[in-house]
């Protein structure tokens, strides 16, 4: 089995998949670091002071102004109100939510990447794992070796898990190293508040607690990893089912983007919560952002994702071990 996994890793690496993913991430991190640097600079200029309390105070005032303006939907209003309460909490407890530094960048970047960027990177690797062997015809060579088919597929899946872990690792490392050049590498111990739960329009702070940032990041990256594994597994299944790589990528991309769009408009469509793409924003639960559909919890989303992942894996193995290869 180890030999088989070595083979699969060799193929992934020699096709420069990981390199491409690392490059994309580096470019984006550079871009966002610069953007955030500009943003911070502008805020400083506008407020004319470098004290974070004034910044947060200013943001609360901004948000309140937006709340006052007409023509925004009720849902949006609720979210804005929650944001104010959250920021008030930071102020009251003297916690700086914008503590600058590479770890903070790592944290917010991961938060924003969990629903699209990371799944996309994972898809690049997973979507052609099986279908490329099929379109190049090498699948015939793989399946005429003295090795059972399920072992061939298992080695591919394990190689995928390894690669996904590598992608998450690269993601964290690159965002830490690059952003640190600008913001400095301090801030691992900065306190972060977690445990908010949104109950309707009220913010329930009963479960709120302070965590050192490194602990928060660890939890967050575990969640990112979990989502990446599930997305990878589903893309893997598509790669087994659909004969062509572009088709597998297209379907996956459509699912991911529809998830993003749906999340913003399904609050009244209850059963949409069983879609995997609605449940991908796991870090939102940590940060205390309201879920797309009321009543969804971290546990619920984790189990929905797990069910999708297991089902995808079962389908992949059933199809791959039985089908005729032409």
């Amino acid at each position, binding site marked *: 089995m180890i030999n*088989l996994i070595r083979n699969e890793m060799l193929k992934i690496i020699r096709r420069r998949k990981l390199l491409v993913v690392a490059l994309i991430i580096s470019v984006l991190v550079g871009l966002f670091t610069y953007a955030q640097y500009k943003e911070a600079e502008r805020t400083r200029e506008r407020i004319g002071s470098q004290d974070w309390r004034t910044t947060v105070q200013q943001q609360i005032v901004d948000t309140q102004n937006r709340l006052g303006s007409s023509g925004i939907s009720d849902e949006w209003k609720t979210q804005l109100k929650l944001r104010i309460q959250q920021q008030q909490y930071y102020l009251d407890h003297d916690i700086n939510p914008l503590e600058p530094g590479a770890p903070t960048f790592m944290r917010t970047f991961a938060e924003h990447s969990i629903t699209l960027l990371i799944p996309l990177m994972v898809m690049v690797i997973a979507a052609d794992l099986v279908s490329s062997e099929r379109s190049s015809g090498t699948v*015939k*060579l793989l399946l*005429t070796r003295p090795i*059972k088919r399920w072992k061939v597929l298992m080695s591919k899946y394990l190689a995928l898990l390894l690669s996904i872990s590598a992608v998450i690792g690269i993601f964290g490392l690159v965002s830490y190293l690059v952003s640190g050049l600008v913001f400095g590498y301090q801030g691992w111990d900065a306190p972060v508040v977690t445990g908010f739960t949104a109950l309707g329009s009220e913010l329930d702070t009963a479960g709120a607690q302070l965590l050192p940032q490194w602990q928060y990041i660890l939890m967050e990256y575990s969640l990112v990893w979990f989502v990446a594994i599930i997305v990878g597994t589903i893309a893997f299944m598509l790669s087994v089912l659909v004969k062509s790589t572009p088709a597998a990528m297209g379907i996956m991309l459509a699912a991911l983007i529809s998830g993003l769009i749906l999340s913003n408009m399904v609050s009244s469509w209850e059963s949409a919560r069983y879609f995997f793409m609605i449940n991908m924003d796991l870090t939102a639960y940590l940060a205390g952002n309201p879920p797309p559909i009321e009543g969804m919890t971290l546990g619920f989303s984790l189990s929905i994702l797990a069910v999708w992942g297991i089902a995808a894996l079962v389908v992949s193995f059933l199809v791959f071990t039985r089908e005729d290869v032409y």
Partner: protein
Amino acid sequence: MDEITLSVKGLKKSIGKREIIKGIDITLKRGEVFGFLGPNGAGKTTTIRMLVGLIKPTAGKIEICGYNVETEFTKAMEQMGCIVENPELYPYLTGWENLEHFSRMLPKQDNSHMKEVVKLVRLQERIHDTVKTYSLGMRQRLGIAQALLGRPKVLILDEPTNGLDPMGIREMRSFIRHLAKEEGLTVLVSSHLLSEIQLMCDRVAIISKGEVLAVDSVEKLLTLQERLTWRVTPEEEGKKVLQSFTTVSKGIDGTLVTPYSAEEAALWNKALVEKGIHVMEINRKLPALEDLFLEITGGETVD
């Protein structure tokens, strides 16, 4: 030398309601080159894919060196090497890496054997270049090297000379003969090129529309269809005489063609002479496999 290495019994395959392979029985022995001949779409590739376990047969049994392909898949595959259609290897890896890749999938990885195989297919000089820089002939050879990695007893090659130049075809042919005669491998070769099979194979199965129409040694199949060509004057009279004995068809430039029969040819000749017809030429001719093929399949087209 009579050891049976590949046996196929009652092999059938249906897709939906259509039966594409309608019961194939063949037995291959050690050290022989067996040809699988049929037009495109006759079911050659489907049959071969069933032999190597890529497609599940609807009915029938395939045994490689006594191991059932369906129930003892890994054991059966250890005895067999194959190229199904084009030798598709990983173009972004070097030849050597490709071989390493496939030898890691064998029960035992053996570096010195890999080197031997590379030498056997004469790829030593280019083996560390990436496969995308290889010519078609080199890829074909690398494909064979890959098939030989596991020291197979049975080698299955689907259209091995496809896309090769005449020089490459000749090389491939002598190489295949060498493997069978010197190394004692059983080689199953499929082709739609009759001339190729004629030159390379000991025995041949003619397959059309999912059925085996004939299995025999190439010579025997050919003698079955031996022909006599006659040149006589006057032609019309001669034709009438011959027609009273057997079937006559018109050959090229005014000749008459009849089946060959050692006993009767003299009688026919005598009858012609008695009727005062001049017999200028009697020629015994082995047909090309082409003619044979057309005869057996009833005119299905081949290249």
